[in-house]
């Protein structure tokens, strides 16, 4: 029995060929699309932000309408640190992540109280409060005019940020990759599996001895740290922070991204980010005035078609890839929740 469980867990955690291809492509984009690094950088940041939300929404079943609170907190932390103390990006990243984690830990107790609807309100409230603090503390944050004068040193003293966004994309992508690997390990660990159990039925999970609340606090804290790091990446690579990082539309956008890509499977956030940003950029380029209409239309169509199909499509693709390479092992991907 134990062996079988262990085998199952290990099999779930195994890297699949499609995943290698995916990451190779992402890194190949550094060379393949030299004049698209700026948007790729934005995509990588949005993807990390979406992965962060996926951890709590897709795995632990915690809904949030205020995830931008941590994103914005990380952005301001990194921006202020660079402006007033250390301008080395990696230190800033770690500090912003740690700060956001603390904030996440503190607010997780609020989120634990109540049900989904309460959680939506509480998370929304936390983001609004932070937004207003940033607006009022203009002496520190620059208020509605934005934080000016953020200048970054080269990364670990070697790689300087360039006008073409090459360093920025490489930096964000490496960060995304490392954190993704960590998140992947986390969700495939016993801790991650217990989260899935809590999501599916908290009462039963508690009955079989899963400490529900501590687990939720843990994943919420990790998720907050991820969001903070995503925010820090944005602040460092654009060298500018505006109130907008805490705005409601950030929280809504990232939720949208996750809906497009599919929650509860870490690649959903990344696929969603790629599609969302590219479609947005393409439409905004074609019709600068009316692109909102098209985005809206696409979203409605997407939801009518059923987002399940999209992710199961990706899963089917992955499965097919596996089948082709290792006949007989194709069922492994079935555990990928759509």
């Amino acid at each position, binding site marked *: 029995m134990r062996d079988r469980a262990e085998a199952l867990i290990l099999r779930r955690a195994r890297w699949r060929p499609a995943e290698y291809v995916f990451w190779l492509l992402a890194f190949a984009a550094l060379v393949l699309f030299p004049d698209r690094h700026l948007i790729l950088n934005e995509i990588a940041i949005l993807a990390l932000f979406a992965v962060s939300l996926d951890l709590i929404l897709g795995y632990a079943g915690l809904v949030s309408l205020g995830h931008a609170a941590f994103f914005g907190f990380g952005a301001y932390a990194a921006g202020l640190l660079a402006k007033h103390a250390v301008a080395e990006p990696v230190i800033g990243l770690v500090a912003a992540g740690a700060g956001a984690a603390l904030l996440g830990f503190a607010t997780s107790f609020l989120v634990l109280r109540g049900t989904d609807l309460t959680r939506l309100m509480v998370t929304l409230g936390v983001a609004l409060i932070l937004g207003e603090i940033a607006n009022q503390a203009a002496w520190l944050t620059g208020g509605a005019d934005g934080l000016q004068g953020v200048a970054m040193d080269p990364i670990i003293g070697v790689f300087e940020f360039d006008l073409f966004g090459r360093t920025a994309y490489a930096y964000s992508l490496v960060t995304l990759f490392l954190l993704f690997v960590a998140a992947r390990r986390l969700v495939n660990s016993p801790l991650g599996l217990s989260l899935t159990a809590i999501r599916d039925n908290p009462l039963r999970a508690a009955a079989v001895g899963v400490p529900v609340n501590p687990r939720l606090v843990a994943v919420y804290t990790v998720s907050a740290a991820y969001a903070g790091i995503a925010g820090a990446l944005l602040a460092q690579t654009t060298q500018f922070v505006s109130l907008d990082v805490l705005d409601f539309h950030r929280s809504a956008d990232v939720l949208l991204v996750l809906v497009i890509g599919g929650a509860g499977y870490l690649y959903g956030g990344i696929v969603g980010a790629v599609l969302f940003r590219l479609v947005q950029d393409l439409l905004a380029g074609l019709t600068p005035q009316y692109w909102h209409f098209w985005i809206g239309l696409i979203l409605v169509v997407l939801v009518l078609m059923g987002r399940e*199909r999209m992710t199961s499509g990706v899963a089917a693709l992955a499965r097919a890839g596996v089948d082709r390479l290792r006949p007989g092992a194709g069922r492994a991907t079935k555990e990928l929740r759509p």
Partner: protein
Amino acid sequence: MKRRTVLKGLGASVATLALPHVARAESSAVRIGLILPMTGPFASTGRQIEAAVKLYMQRNGDAVAGRKLEIVLKDDTGTADVTKRLAQELIVNDKVSFLAGFGLTPLALAPAPLATQAKVPQIVMAAATSTITEASPFIVRSSFTLPQATVPLAEWAPKNGIKRVVSLVTDYGPGHDAEKAFKERFSADGGQMLSELRVPLRNPDFAPFLQRVADAKPDAVFVFVPSGVGAQLMKQFVERGLDKSGIRLIGTGDVTDDDILNDMGDVALGVITTHHYSAAHDSPENKAFVEAFRKAAGFRPNFMAVGGYDGMHLVYEALKKTNGDTAGEGLVAAMKAMAWTSPRGPVSIDPQTRDIVQNIYVRKVEKVGAELFNVEFATIPNVKDPVKAAKG
């Protein structure tokens, strides 16, 4: 079937990434990157400037000094980090020779370091905080500064029986500028500021603030709001009954913006404002401009439109002076001290500050024919930005 859908999606994504290669192919044209809020709460600014830019090109031809001009329009949705990314892309991918537009102060400040780094002239056609031109030596402004429009009003008020004033401004750069400029001048001239209220930039609700104005019982309330928000303010001003309480409404021209003034209805009648442009400005240049603009765009030009129109004038004249050479330093040098007659009246670029020097008019909302207009009744000639003038 499903696989095909996904493959199609991925294929389309990759194709999107490859697009700019095609767009970049021809290079002899001079490109102007126009970044404006075309959607969101400040979309009216974008609409006005875009129409004005098109009109200028229509009236003056799309070629200067033997080079064709091309506009690359981008929508920044009024979000500063998007503005910055778009500016960067325009510089790097589209190789633009000018950046132009910039609807709000944060949007103009965010890309300023890029303009300096890439040596690309950044023409600010709308944003009005005084400090903007100090953010980069490549910024030239064709709109106005808030203190420039405010100080004449602060001088006019005490002479016309307004002694006690409450100020009500939007809480961001230009609002702070307006509040400070008004207070300093007004107090120096013997006026009394009862209180200074600030309304958030996003999703403003004026009702509680107007209630506080009503409670303070001043002679007048001095108002600054960004272009496009004035209608909402006027509506709530009337709903609260302030129009009947004898409190006068004075402000910079942003409040009675030509774009929305007509829709405010008769409640706006008699509002006194100071500004650099009115669609009712009495000059042959302006009559021709307004007529052509209405014909081309289908609506009335406001001060944003004239900022965009004069911004294009700067582009054309600078290129003429450099004979089509697009080196950034040369273009900025060519724009300095340039003087011409704009639809708004005589204007020039201050060679020290790269800010615009222009007449400020005191106006009153009146009915002309069937429409409401800001009718000018006094002129303060050649006003420089008072903040930078004070710095010496």
